[in-house]
């Protein structure tokens, strides 16, 4: 969960900065690009874990000990220091909830402007 949370939070925070710079209004392109980049970032972050999914345990164990895996959003470092906490899930749900509510707010504002 740490990997996914950290990876998704990077495009999310960039989008949040853009959103506030535009006086809390979101363009359609921002609303489409943000979740897409969050998904891509999450996938990138778990690349070293994917061999396990496909049963390639040798490659998985090799990547597990390779510090170069830090290019996948600090995957190696996180694996060495991570702790399990229910707050990771809470923060993750909160992030998706904020994204959903921002999109809904934009729909509401645009309907009011009609």
């Amino acid at each position, binding site marked *: 969960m740490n990997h996914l949370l950290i990876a998704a939070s990077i495009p999310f925070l960039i989008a949040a900065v853009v959103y506030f710079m*535009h006086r809390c*209004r979101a*363009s*359609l*392109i921002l*609303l*489409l690009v943000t*979740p897409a980049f969050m998904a891509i970032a999450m996938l990138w972050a778990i690349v070293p874990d994917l061999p396990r999914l496909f049963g390639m345990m040798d490659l998985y164990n090799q990547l597990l000990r390779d510090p170069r895996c830090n290019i996948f959003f600090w995957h190696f470092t996180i694996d060495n220091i991570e702790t399990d906490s*229910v707050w990771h899930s809470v923060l993750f749900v909160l992030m*998706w*909830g904020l*994204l*959903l*509510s921002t*999109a*809904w707010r*934009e*729909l*509401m504002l*645009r*309907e009011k*402007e*009609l």
Partner: protein
Amino acid sequence: MAHSTMHFAIGLVSGTAILLPSVLRGMTTGKKTSKDTGRMLAVSYALAFVAIIPNLLRHAGIPDSFCSGWWMNLFLFNPMLDKLKPGGLLIGELMILVLFVTHYSIIITGIIKVSRLKHNQPISELFSKN
């Protein structure tokens, strides 16, 4: 015992299933959909929360005998589902993902529709406007 993500997903599915027809009806008849969509989101996530109340109570240290009692079926058949489908973390996560994408797509479709009504513009021009 079913995983809490499974219960959460069941709550989301229930709320969406109840209110999705009214959202779709509004979309097809050209009415404003933000209120219906907002109601659907609120009910879906509220039901998802209700569905995991027994899990939260268990997590808070309430005895399992109480949290698995038949009366807990009030919370979207939580103990019944525990008996029927043990585990289900992956299915639950997939269901939540599908529902999130569905909710988000409905909102984006609504925004595209409103923009087209406002500017009477083709869909290709929407992406350059705020």
